[in-house]
């Protein structure tokens, strides 16, 4: 992943003497959907501003298609090839139509083409009917759709999104992110999104970057980052859901059977045979037994496993196991004492089909 | 909202054009040598005499006279600072000092009118017909009758103070002695409103008489004479003054033709002349 469409090297950003960002290298490939996740204050939004050339770093370079972007004019030209959407819609005090057209107008696009594009994107974001509504009279969701339409209408090469859905209620959020997702898929546009919602990141991204204290701690495909956290921080941050990539073999009575590597997992959920899915299992729902529970429990998913790692996490102990795929379980201290678990031990893990959370992916 | 942008731009452009035009226009850029700053008193200005005389002067000489009407005190201060070219004032004692200290030259007598003591028709202090202004004031003080002073260092105020001084009485600080700090016309209105006594120049009184409600109670005393002089500011002290212009104006004020205009000024409107021309006369003949 040498240079990608955008890359940065030795990036340092400071504010008032304090170091906000310190990233030796980072790149984004053309056409990919990259999510940036991390705790508050980790520098995600700052990084986005740097990538958009809206913030000048104290050191380091930004490269676009391999060429350095540094001078005033180069920054300006670069900014006209990309666009950004913020958490607040930041619309102008005029109609929706004019808002969506504003970026095109700034960039000097002709009248005919503007009209064509604005109409198209109003439709794509399902806000056609609001074209002549004043921006002041929009709901949160409608306003954010307008902001997105404005950014997309410019047909940028890269689009940056800074927590675009954080301020919206869940149903609105889902609706809009679905629309966004389909448009991104359709246009193949390179997308960089900062989000707090990990399932959103999971669902939409090709790669996830985890940030902490101004640095990028891990970059990789979602399942890899989630299942193979680089360190304790990432592990704790992404949550310890086991995430398994697989394909749906069949659906029956509301139950999907998913092939994950060599094994089959039963999960309750909605999917169609042939769908690519992620199966997520929360560690609390993974039960460890010393003997084969096949006959004893109602869990549909039982596998023999080997104990790999044992970590202490507050009142629990986190056990990483290998049953052909990586799986994580939480046990209480009492249970741990009873089971007398040790690394390398052979045990059985089981989890109910209802405990498996299915997420359909884009592939 | 493209229209708004256009409005903003055109307004700004208009502003610059307006400024340029304004600065370049003849009215505002009256050439240095052609402008005279005349410092005079409010009573002179308010009488309307200058409105009559100045156009004549300006037409024949081409000068543009900027009349700044303030109290005599301020007028002379302006002269002292060289901020005026010529003065037309009526505060003889202060004027003499002004000339003695070298600020003014060519002090020439122009005209006079007189002051009168006015009061309500009811005349509580019983001063009507009194021949001596000094005595009248004494009576006012004795009766604790309300007296309005201009209190603004004007020529009128200076004369009033001089009269009080002559009575030897303490007048300031008493409840019946009030100072307005206002011009003559306004002070008259206040006096009329409060039914008090006051001293005013006849010119102003005549021009506001219409609805005033104050009567002339004492007049004719020599000490009530109000004498106007024209003084040129000394160019030796202040090289920047328009000495030629000042002289031209002063010459004009004492010229025969001008004096004739002064003689008849106000007759048609008020039934009596407001000023009496005195140019060239010996001051002693006026009883000074």
């Amino acid at each position: 992943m040498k240079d990608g469409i955008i890359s940065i090297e030795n990036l340092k950003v400071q504010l008032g003497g304090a170091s906000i960002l310190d990233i030796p290298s980072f790149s984004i490939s053309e056409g990919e959907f990259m999510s940036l996740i991390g705790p508050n204050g980790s520098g995600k939004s700052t990084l986005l501003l740097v990538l958009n050339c809206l913030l000048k770093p104290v050191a380091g370079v930004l490269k676009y298609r391999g060429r350095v972007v540094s001078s005033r004019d180069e920054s300006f030209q670069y900014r006209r090839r990309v666009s950004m959407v913020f958490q607040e819609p930041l619309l102008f005090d005029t109609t929706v139509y004019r808002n969506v057209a504003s970026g095109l107008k700034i960039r000097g696009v002709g009248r005919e083409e503007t009209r064509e594009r604005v109409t198209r994107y109003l439709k794509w974001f399902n806000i056609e009917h609001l074209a002549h509504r004043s921006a002041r009279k929009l709901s949160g969701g409608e306003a954010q759709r307008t902001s997105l339409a404005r950014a997309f209408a410019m047909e940028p090469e890269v689009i940056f999104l800074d927590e675009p859905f954080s301020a919206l209620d869940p149903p609105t959020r889902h609706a809009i992110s679905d629309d966004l997702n389909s448009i991104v898929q359709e246009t193949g546009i390179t997308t960089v999104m900062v989000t707090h919602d990990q399932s959103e990141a999971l669902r939409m991204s090709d790669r996830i970057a985890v940030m902490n204290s101004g640095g990028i701690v891990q970059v990789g495909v979602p399942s890899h980052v989630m299942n193979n956290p680089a360190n304790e921080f990432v592990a704790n941050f992404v949550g310890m859901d086991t995430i398994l990539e697989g394909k749906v073999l069949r659906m029956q009575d509301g139950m999907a059977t998913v092939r994950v590597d060599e094994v089959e997992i039963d999960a309750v959920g909605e999917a169609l045979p042939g769908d690519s899915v992620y199966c997520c299992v929360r560690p609390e729902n993974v039960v460890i037994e010393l003997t084969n529970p096949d006959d004893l429990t109602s869990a549909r998913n039982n596998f023999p496993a080997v104990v790999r790692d044992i970590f202490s996490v507050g009142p629990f102990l986190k056990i990483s196991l290998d049953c052909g795929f990586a799986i994580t379980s939480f046990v209480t201290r009492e249970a741990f004492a009873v089971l007398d678990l040790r690394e390398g031990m052979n045990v059985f893990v089981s989890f109910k089909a209802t405990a498996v959370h299915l997420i359909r992916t884009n592939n | 909202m493209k229209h708004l942008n256009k409005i903003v731009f055109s307004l700004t452009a208009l502003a610059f054009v307006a400024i340029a035009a304004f600065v370049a226009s003849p009215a505002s850029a009256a050439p240095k040598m052609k402008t005279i700053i005349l410092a005079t008193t409010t009573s002179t200005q308010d009488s309307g005499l200058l409105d009559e005389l100045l156009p004549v002067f300006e037409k024949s000489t081409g000068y543009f006279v900027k009349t700044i009407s303030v109290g005599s005190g301020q007028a002379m201060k302006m002269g002292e600072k060289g901020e005026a070219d010529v003065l037309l004032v009526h505060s003889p004692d202060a004027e003499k000092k002004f000339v003695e200290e070298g600020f003014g030259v060519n002090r020439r007598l122009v005209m006079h009118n007189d002051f009168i003591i006015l009061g309500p028709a009811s005349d509580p202090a019983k001063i009507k017909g009194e021949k001596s202004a000094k005595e009248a004031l004494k009576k006012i003080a004795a009766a604790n009758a309300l007296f309005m002073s201009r209190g603004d260092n004007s020529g009128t105020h200076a004369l009033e103070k001089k009269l009080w001084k002559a009575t030897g009485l303490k007048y300031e600080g008493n409840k019946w002695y009030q100072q307005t700090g206002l011009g003559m016309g306004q002070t008259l209105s206040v006096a009329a409103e409060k039914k008090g006594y006051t001293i005013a120049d006849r010119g102003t009184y005549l021009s506001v008489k219409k609805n005033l409600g104050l009567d002339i109670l004492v007049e004719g005393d020599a000490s009530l004479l109000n004498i106007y002089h024209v003084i040129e500011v000394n160019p030796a002290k202040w090289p920047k003054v328009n000495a030629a212009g000042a002289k031209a104006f002063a010459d004009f004020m004492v010229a025969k033709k001008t004096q004739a205009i002064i003689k008849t000024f106000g007759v048609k409107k008020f039934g009596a002349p407001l000023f009496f021309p005195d140019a060239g006369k010996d001051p002693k003949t006026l009883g000074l």
Partner: protein
Amino acid sequence: MDLILEGLITAFKLLMALDPEVLSITWLSLKVSGIATLISVGIGISCGMIVALTRFPGKKFVVSVVNTGMGLPPVVVGLFVTVFLWRNGPFGFLDILYTPTAIIIAQAVIATPIVMGISIAALQNLPAKMRLQILSLGATRMQMVMILVKEARLPLMAAVMAGFGGVISEVGASIMVGGNIKGYSRVLTTATVMETGKGEFATAFALSIILLLLVFIVNYLFTLIQQRERPR
């Protein structure tokens, strides 16, 4: 009461007769205050933008100076301008004391902090990230500034109205630096004071009414524009 009536009648008569002196005084008032307002808008909004939108040391101090300037007594301004412009002052060579130009200068000095102070507040009231959003749309510096001004147009128009209102009604400085010279630097306010001083209350009243009418008409026009801009 009959004074007011008399004043109204006099005002009516003067206007109907198109009394040339009254007309020229009115026109001069409008011209002088109009130009002063335009100057103050030009300086006030542009400097206001710079102060509102850039970060620099001492910014709080500058803003409080501007806010103090908003309450600057016009008479004080008049005094200072006089001292600067009189013959023996630093700008005496310009020879503009007792001219309408001097009144324009004094009024511009009075109005500029008003316009600037309100402009700063108006621009700072825009969402903090708005500037970044506009830049991300690919705007040049100039485009960004124009858009921000457009976004803040309602309060900015109020700033202009406040500036104009402050100077059209100003009298202390106008007398001091203008000299109230007949047919030359006499404006409605200074003429009103003079007539009052002469005791000519009816005329003074008439002039006041004309001034009020003038101010009302101008403000009405501005308000129409301002309120028309409100999106439905």
